[in-house]
């Protein structure tokens, strides 16, 4: 562990790592000088990671934008075939989960163990509910043959607001392709989030967090909120194209 000698007289005994801080904070890694530095690094790290996530979804939004401009009537028709009620419900579910996340962070800051654990459990329940509803929507789409591929069928679906006009199945298929990729990747993020929260829950259960140190809850929360924000955009983009009429 210890480096006794440099090449020259600069040598000094390296302060044994962590011991001084270990009393408050067993989690301080010893390449950090202070807990604040460690927490700031973690939080910046998560923000930077979220920036990469924006670009990750950005590629999909780009594809979506291109085809929505091109194939607007079919996109509108396809969007209309979605169950916007379920979509809105899911949005509400995620918003509730964001509330419980923020409560969890607050509980950790103020050392409210029961609230902390309760909020984390609620968050996970909301997350599972979201995935359940999503699963049902996927099943519906499957049954309606709206899943792109050989069995895809979208014949004679009228274009909203244009009587007598029908969606082009090929264009609608692109909509559904984007729908499944976008929501699928979003759901994947939810599943990862659930994993993170399961871990946070065990940590909280074991009493690892304190008002001095609860960085994992904070940055886990940032991640969860971000996934929520993505959905906030996916909902109108996928479910609410030209719904009137």
């Amino acid at each position, binding site marked *: *562990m210890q*480096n006794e000698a440099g090449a020259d007289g*600069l040598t000094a005994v390296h302060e044994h790592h962590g011991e001084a801080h270990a009393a408050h904070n067993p989690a301080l*890694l010893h*390449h950090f000088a202070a807990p604040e530095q460690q927490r700031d*690094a973690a939080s*910046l790290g998560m923000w930077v990671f979220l920036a990469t996530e924006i670009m990750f979804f950005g590629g999909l939004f780009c594809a979506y934008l291109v085809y929505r401009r091109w194939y607007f009537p079919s996109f509108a028709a396809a969007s209309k075939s979605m169950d916007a009620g379920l979509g809105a419900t899911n949005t509400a579910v995620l918003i509730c989960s964001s509330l419980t996340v923020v409560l969890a962070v607050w509980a950790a800051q103020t050392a409210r163990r029961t609230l902390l654990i309760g909020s984390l459990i609620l968050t996970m329940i909301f997350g599972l509910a979201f995935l359940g509803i999503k699963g049902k929507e996927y099943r519906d789409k499957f049954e309606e043959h709206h899943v792109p591929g050989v069995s895809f069928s979208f014949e004679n679906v009228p274009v909203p607001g244009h009587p007598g006009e029908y969606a082009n199945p090929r264009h609608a*298929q692109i909509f559904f392709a984007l729908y499944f990729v976008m929501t699928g*990747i979003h759901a994947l993020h939810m599943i990862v989030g659930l994993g993170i929260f399961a871990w946070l829950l065990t940590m909280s259960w074991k009493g690892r967090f304190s008002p001095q140190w609860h960085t994992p809850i904070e940055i886990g929360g940032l991640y969860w909120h971000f996934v929520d924000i993505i959905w906030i955009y996916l909902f109108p983009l996928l479910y609410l194209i030209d719904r009137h009429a």
Partner: protein
Amino acid sequence: MQPTIPHPMIPQPVFPEAAEQKNYLNEKYGAWSWLMTTDHKRIALLYLLSITFFFFIGGFFALLIRLELLTPAGDLVQADTYNKLFTMHGMVMVFFFLIPSIPAVLGNFLVPMMIGAKDLAFPRINLLSWYLYIIGGALMMHCMLTGGVDTGWTFYTPFSTGFTNTKIVEAGIAIFIAGFSSILTGLNFVVTIHRMRAPGMTWSRLPLFIWAHYATSIIQLLGTPVIAITIVLVAAERALHLGIFDPKLGGDPLLFQHLFWFYSHPAVYIMILPSMGVITEIIACFSRKRIFGYHFVAFSSIAIAVFGFLVWAHHMFVAGISVYSALVFSFLSYAVALPSAIKVFNWTATLYKGSIHYDAPMLYAFGFLGLFTIGGLTGLFLSALGIDVHVTDTYFVVAHFHYIMVGGAVMGYLGGIHFWWPKISGRLYPEGWARLAALIVFIGFNLTFFPQFLLGYMGMPRRYYDYSHMPEFQILNVMSTAGATILGVGYLLPMVYLLWSMRRGKPASENPWNAAGLEWKTASPPPTFNFDEEPVVTWEAYNYDELDAPHKEEVPVAK
């Protein structure tokens, strides 16, 4: 403390006075201590090994390409094999060699030391990113050994999604994973540079190497995710025929190109910026001078990173984009060339009134200057719309990017490896051999790639395995192949003598070049946490005037 069992992989000290020193190399022994290490310096060495491996794989493919092109007829390999060769050559060289090369090896090793930190901000993530690289690399190897891919490294649709039956998805996943590794490296650098600087290490005291890596990280962070999602779409399209890139199903194949180049153009700056950082350090040290126009060089790195995102469609001038769009992207391409020009001029000005030493790293730096300038200037040809129409997809382009990537980036990488070798290994490399290698690489390189400019303007298309319809191209191709063999020797030489020096080289002092920079203020090789006490920086970057102050002895630089 573990018992010190000598390990065959690790050079054992030959000199008694060195035997007592503990450093990152000899602190722990055994394969496990390497595979589980979170020490950024050890991870850098893990990368060094794996990247060298992939460089030789890629180089091996290059040699086969060149052998095939020795004669006009397609006689050495089959057409499909050739197509796989250049595809795998490009993919390996780009994604598994050049993109990780300097950041993951030298950057990993030096970024914390240069800013006075004990390690990167997230050492375990750093290890994870090496493992991701290895998993991606293993997948790539598996893919190559079981058939490979034949789309070119650019994966153009609809060929890749509907017309080839090679292992696109597997190669895609390999690149996806390697991309993740690249993102994590960038993330670690950004956070480390923001959060872990030693007291007194202000932004304008940062070595320009750090600025270059900071700019590189921006690209890695914001560009790589886009290629990742593009790969996902290609894989999905291929598996399920979604139609997103398939014109038969209403999709647009050009959308793929937009998304691909949105990453892959900035990616070329991932390859060159770190190399520019290395060159800056070398030029300052071997001219014993502060870099001319420090702030301009620093900000030009950031400018390259940002402008680099504005020019991607210059790869698509004849692809069918709108004329208006082509004009915009051509214009912006010149905007990104400007910061590169600023760098070249400032390096040149740094030499003025310097005290210039001709050690091997400096020879590589000279090589870089010359070849990067030629490569960059030919980039100006390509971004001139009228000319690109003629030379796009010909050997002119091949020559352009090899001048920058091999002549520029790889030269910089080799220069950096030599420059910091004493720090990394604690040994000096043999100077005479190193100078010879630099010379051979330079000559071999020009012989290989200069003829390709001529070939390109004459009209030889790239990715052609058989040119029997145009035998007039043969002479230049023969020159190119001859050059490539010389180049291969030039690359093998450093392998040999650097390995040799790990055991036999003279032990290096703390600061053999009398160079500025915190990394030289600790032992060679450094202790595990880099510094025995946290450094406090009270001096400006490149304080060569102080280092060379007359009251000190003249420090021998050349050996």
